């Protein structure tokens, strides 16, 4: 740095005293503008330039990140499957089931559906058939009550042959049309805004009277998986910390030429495809795999008692710990590298035991790295799904596997969005807790 102790002067703004010579007068620039204003406008220009520089990034983030995520979250409490039909080719939006919605509004929950209700239903289905929307409207009801979709598609094919009274006609077509659960489901679905998906995402449902109740114990799965995801993620974060701390310490204290070589060993797996690493663990850990074969060959294990280390929680924890390890090593390394070894030496020379010196001097200086690493690993672990899907078997599945299931297979995007929103909220709460306990400014990513 410069060894002259001059105050740096912005060469673009020549500062002169005012010509009148009054000492307490305003300072102006060479062209006579007040200095304060000149500075303000110069700063404004600079700020605008800075904004233009980040504008592409801002637009990029808005378009590719904030907007789609916002739309996704919107889906978790907004579903028009039973209220509006959008024609795919023309984009024309038609309100559907309007008569039935009006009937629901005129009659409180629990009213036995009368002939007027069935007439409204028939009109709605006639319109659905015209729009070719019986399948999609039925799917919306099917999310709440299984078995409803085919009732709508069937009724869509047969409505024109129905004769009044329509209540009997519908019940003759399928007596399930009289099921109070079905009417309760249609009532819920007749509003585009709904909390049904959040209820479903925490194993709750609305009963016929509209009360929130727990779903049948045989169908409860999401709460259990949320808890499991949380526990496994904490465990994996802890394991990566235990493993990464000594590695990072070694890397930080070795002479550069050795530590660079070792760093390659940390980074090489990091650069390898996730699938390759996951599959390698399968080759190692499966019951006919390398580890078991070695144990059997050395006589430590009999052939019948091969260890089951894959397709269960052990497999998930081992593979994910390995895959996420670099995310812990790198932040730790970056905080350990600049720690001056003379601090610990000073502590030792003042009589501290090596444990005390570590605990009181070295460890506190690495906390920002631990925080950053733990946060990274934890957040990544909470959202992991390829590895648990491949090695998790039955009990190594995480909540993200079910989110993927609802995104890709069942196509119930609203439920997937509700599950994802809860997960996101959970992560934000943990982030807030971290900020309260450790302080977010005390975070060092590298």
């Amino acid at each position, binding site marked *: 740095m410069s060894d002259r102790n001059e105050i740096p002067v912005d060469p673009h703004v020549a500062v002169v005293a005012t010509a009148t010579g009054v000492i307490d007068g305003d300072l102006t620039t060479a062209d006579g503008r007040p200095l304060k204003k000149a500075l303000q406008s110069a700063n404004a220009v600079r700020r605008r330039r800075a904004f233009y520089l980040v504008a592409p990034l801002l637009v990029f983030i808005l378009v590719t990140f904030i907007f789609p995520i916002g739309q996704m979250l919107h889906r978790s409490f907004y579903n028009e499957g039973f209220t509006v039909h959008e024609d795919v080719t023309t984009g024309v939006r038609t309100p559907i089931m309007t008569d039935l919605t009006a009937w629901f509004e005129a009659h409180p929950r629990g009213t036995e559906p009368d002939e007027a209700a069935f007439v409204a239903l028939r009109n709605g289905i006639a319109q659905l058939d015209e729009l070719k929307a019986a399948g999609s409207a039925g799917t919306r009801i099917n999310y709440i009550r299984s078995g409803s979709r085919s009732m709508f598609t069937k009724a869509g094919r047969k409505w024109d042959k129905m004769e009044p009274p329509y209540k009997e006609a519908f019940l003759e077509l399928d007596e399930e049309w009289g099921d109070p659960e079905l009417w309760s489901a249609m009532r819920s679905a007749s509003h585009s805004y709904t909390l049904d998906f959040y209820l479903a995402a925490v194993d709750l449902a609305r009963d016929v009277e509209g009360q929130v109740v727990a779903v049948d114990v045989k169908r409860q799965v999401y709460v259990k998986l949320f808890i*499991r995801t949380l526990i496994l993620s904490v465990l994996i974060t802890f394991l990566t910390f235990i493993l990464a701390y000594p590695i990072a310490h070694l890397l930080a204290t070795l002479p550069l030429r050795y530590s660079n070589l070792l760093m390659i060993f940390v980074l090489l797996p990091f650069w390898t495809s996730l699938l390759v690493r996951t599959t390698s663990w399968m080759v190692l850990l499966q019951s006919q795999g390398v580890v078991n074969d070695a144990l059997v060959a050395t006589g430590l294990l009999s052939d019948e008692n091969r260890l089951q280390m894959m397709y269960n929680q052990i497999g998930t924890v081992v593979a994910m710990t390995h895959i996420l390890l670099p995310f812990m090593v790198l932040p730790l390394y970056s905080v350990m590298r600049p720690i001056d070894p003379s601090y610990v030496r000073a502590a030792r020379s003042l009589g501290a035991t090596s444990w005390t010196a570590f605990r009181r001097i070295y460890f506190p200086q690495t906390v920002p790295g631990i925080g950053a690493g733990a946060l990274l690993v934890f957040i990544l672990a909470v959202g992991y799904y390829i590895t648990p899907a491949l090695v998790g078997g039955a*009990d190594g599945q995480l909540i993200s596997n079910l989110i993927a299931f609802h995104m890709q297979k069942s196509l119930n995007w609203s439920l997937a969005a509700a599950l994802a929103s809860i997960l996101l909220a959970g992560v934000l709460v943990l982030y807030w807790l971290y900020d309260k306990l450790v302080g977010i400014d005390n975070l060092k990513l590298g």
Partner: protein
Amino acid sequence: MKIKSILMASALAGVAGAALAESHGGQEVVMMSWGGAYGKSQEEAYNKPFTAETGIPVTMVDADNPATPLKAQVEAGNVSIDVADVEFSDAVRLCDEGLLEEIDPSILPPAPDGTPAAEDFIDGAIQDCAVANIVWSTVMAYNADAFTTAPDSIDDFFNLDEFPGKRGLRKTAKATLEMALMADGVPAGEVYDVLETEEGIDRAFAKLDTIKDSIVWWEAGAQPPQLLADGEVTMSTAYNGRIFNAAVAEGQPLEIVWDGQILDFDLFVIPKGAPHKDAAMQYIAFATDTQRLADQAKWISYGPARKSSGALVGLYQDGKTEMAPHMPTAAANLENALVNNFEFWVDMDAELNERFNAWLAQ
């Protein structure tokens, strides 16, 4: 000079091509399928003979899942494909959404012995907007090296005493619950009636409970042959084409048990607004006739969707493997076979998979 002649040549070729196209009324068929060995089988068995007979050229386009681009094209109002090969669930869903042309079954030719098409096709193979061409199936397969006596029925899958070892199953309720019920003694014809009831679902899960600790779950179709060949499992459910390929083309000691197989279709559909709709109809009628469906089996071990094609199935492309016994639709293999009920699964998918996932997590 050289450039000029190339330009001239290509211009001439263009004119010639246009003239050729004009000669059969500007007709052509753009067909979208899945590529790979399956696409090749269609190219050889359907497209080449169709062009030879009618003079209408067929252009083949590959897609990961033709239903996706088809949906995008119709929604964008810019359709370039005439025929697509899609899965059952997609065919019904796209038809429900009004994205497909309806296909009149009367255009389909009868079997050589005069049986009308409606009776000649396997049940469910003709839908409002779709006609099936092949049948694939989820079967039980085993590693022949693992057992001294060969398993021969679906109950053996659940018999851990006589046939020890791990079992591979696909991590989904579909097919798994049906197999459990068939193994528990429910005849194929009654499976979906039983599975509709609460007791039936409990019964299926109770059967699965008996082997739960021995199950290795798979998700991708390539996994079961691998798990079986590695000895990781001794028996597994699998797609029949994958096992055939591992056994015949790669020489692995894998065998299929056809008892309790679950059949599924791939179907031809025509998107709404297809540029050559009439030629597409003509193509579908031609490609799904008895001989064409039988010819396809030469190239891949998926079964023809017509009963009358079974007798005409010949040798595999290696020239020595008789394909007939490897077809999911061979008479001997159909003795206790279940046809996947799409309607049942669109209705019950959510509930059964929730229960399935809850059962897994227990």
